[in-house]
């Protein structure tokens, strides 16, 4: 009998079924309701933006893997999620070349120039969004009202709040905002469509509750204090929760594994920081919306937060080693 060819590897010999692919595809599935609802609200143009964003992201990933002479990882799901998230952050009427440019910034500049998956400091989709927002402020804030047949542009609630003040928002309907019947970018409008995805990720333990709930809680608390002080000058915390990209950002972008802190303490500080910055930018900043800036600024602090934990571990050990 031919002797059996054995293979030797190191323990453990059983591994969990989770892989990078499964994590990424689960996030993609969790974003699916929001994508579908955006297509329902904004029509074929939303489908086009989403499609172009995803396809160009995957193509850029493939190309840069070839250039970097790495095994191609364009189908591992991370480019898909980046493309999907980017599309959800864009207005439905954005010219397609801008979408492609955004995908380029996300994959090539924000992800691979920092070293690829796992090494990027900033959330790629958000970098692309902010890049587009700063480069093309007009196109990026041309929102379309849902179901608008003649592609009529409208201002988002936060935009109205910033430019015209609280009085202009008299017709604001809380329930409509919850369903997503308001102008805004593809994915941020319908809170209802985002919730099942968020629940799925929490249930599958791909994200923990700490970052999103602390983030949203802090924003509501901060805006709530000012609302209580001056209800006529400031919008209610509920308004801040339901408008803008707070829910999308808190559940799907602040929780990005690569760009969020590792420890519980770090995650809570990260959430508080995101919340406070979002509220500050919304209340007093130049831009109506602050979620993306807040997350990106806190992303930059993540290495510091992680280092804090590491240096604490070291400091705990140092005396005992010196004594020995």
């Amino acid at each position, binding site marked *: 009998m031919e002797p*059996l*060819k*054995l*293979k*030797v*590897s*190191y*323990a*453990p*010999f*059983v*591994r*969990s079924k*989770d*892989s*990078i692919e*499964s*994590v990424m595809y689960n996030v993609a599935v969790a974003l699916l309701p929001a994508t579908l609802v955006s297509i329902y609200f904004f029509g074929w143009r939303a489908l086009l933006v989403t499609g172009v964003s995803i396809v160009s992201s995957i193509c850029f990933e493939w190309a840069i893997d070839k250039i970097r002479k790495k095994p191609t990882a364009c189908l591992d799901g991370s480019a898909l999620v980046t493309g999907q998230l980017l599309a959800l952050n864009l207005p439905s009427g954005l010219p397609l070349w801008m979408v492609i440019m955004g995908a380029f910034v996300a994959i090539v500049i924000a992800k691979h120039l920092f070293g*690829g*998956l*796992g*090494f990027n400091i900033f959330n790629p989709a958000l970098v692309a969004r902010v890049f587009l927002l700063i480069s093309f402020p007009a196109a990026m804030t041309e929102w379309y009202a849902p179901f608008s047949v003649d592609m009529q542009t409208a201002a988002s609630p936060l935009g109205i709040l910033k430019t015209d003040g609280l009085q202009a928002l008299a017709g604001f309907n809380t329930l409509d905002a919850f369903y997503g019947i308001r102008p805004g970018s593809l994915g941020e409008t319908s809170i209802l469509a985002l919730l099942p995805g968020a629940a799925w990720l929490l249930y599958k333990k791909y994200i923990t509750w700490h970052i999103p709930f602390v983030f949203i809680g802090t924003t509501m608390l901060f805006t709530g204090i000012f609302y209580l002080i001056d209800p006529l000058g400031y919008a209610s915390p509920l308004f801040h929760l339901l408008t803008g990209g707070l829910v999308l950002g808190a559940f799907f972008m602040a929780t990005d*594994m*690569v760009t*969020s802190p*590792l*420890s519980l303490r770090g995650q809570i500080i990260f959430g508080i920081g995101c919340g406070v910055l979002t509220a500050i930018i919304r209340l007093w900043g130049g831009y109506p919306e602050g979620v993306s800036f807040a997350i990106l600024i806190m992303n930059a602090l993540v290495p510091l937060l992680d280092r804090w*934990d*590491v240096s604490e*571990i*070291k400091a705990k*050990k*140092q005396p*005992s*080693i010196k004594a020995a």
Partner: protein
Amino acid sequence: MKTFKTGGIHPPEQKLTSGKAVEVMPHPQELAVPMSQHLGKPAKPVVKVGDEVKKGQLVGAADGFISANVHAPTSGKIKAVKQHPHPGGQYSMTVFITPDGKDEWLEGLNTPECDWKKLSKEEILKRITDAGVVGMGGAGFPSGVKLSPPRDKTIDTIILNGAECEPFLTADHRVMIEEPEAIVKGLEIITSLFQGQVSAYIGIESNKPDAAAALKKHADSKGIGIVVLETKYPQGAEKQLINAITGRTVNEGELPFDKGCLVHNIATAIAIYEAVCKNKPLIERVVTISGMEIHTAKNIRILVGTKFSEIAAFCGSMTEKTNQVITGGPMMGKAQFSLDVPVTKTTSGILFINNRGLEKSGEKTCIRCSRCISACPQNLQPWLLANTAQLRDFDTIELYGMANCTECGSCSYVCPSKRELVHWIKYAKTLASKRKQRQSA
């Protein structure tokens, strides 16, 4: 339900053999008895080629303080004494015995049961040491040494480890059902060695209610506590078991006796009972033969020194799809490179599996999901340890608590990037101690 505080994972249990009674395997054609079946220095062979040995006769004498005796598993003739593959993955000096089929005990061994209460403490310890009893859970620490801790340490808790948290393995489970009396007696003997108020516990995972019930019958009257523990890996790791049962934490650099605890395996308790009451050296044990690629998964009672190839034949041979043969459990076991390796005192299971993950393996980059951190029962940062190990920065890695890692494998299990976290930590441990040796030399 009690459990340890931090970390832990839930791998699929796959206890295929928990309902199967222990079978006795007939004696093999040839026995290969390794001299290194324990932690510490290998025993010194005391027989020559051509010698006739009786069953239970000493073939390897303990060499040094941390070492253990090795005995002939059956009567026969010494065929060779040479280096031979060992299930630990390395080579070890091995005594080959051709059985004569008579299976004759050496005189004075395997006597009718005597009352251990009449023996002095020194006599009990001597019998345990002479019988070559070692920890049968996997590490193989000589029991005689473990039972004589430094004088300044007071032991107030004795724990028997019946958690058997590794997937597949059921050897301890079956033994608990079939020999509860011997286990309780073994535990009583251990407890009698320590002065003062000593509480005794047997920790059993909740997936073995029948074992807990069987032991309870005998243990209750003796004041031994049966503790049912949550089914969670690594519940049976020494430090985690102590934490789960007593709430105490064994810190880095400490041994269980620093916290007043001693942990012994279920099988070790039986070996101690047989050594003390029957004067029977440790020459056989119960092993789980399992895995998807073996024809009939079984629990078998087997002589130390039986080769894996003969065991596979006894269990109806393995399929062609087998690509890994593993000793111990799938979380902390060792993959074998040869089927010539023999069963040792510490072999708790032999698994024949088709590891499909191997083809797809290959480490990917860390995506910082922090699962390894929440899985680590020792509250470490496995990703950080592995990254530092990859940089070969052995000064810094010690500051990150490398020595505290028990190599339970939980981090590698959960890692979605399939990083070899435990292997990197083990790698750093080996090279750091090598470097220390070189520096002091």
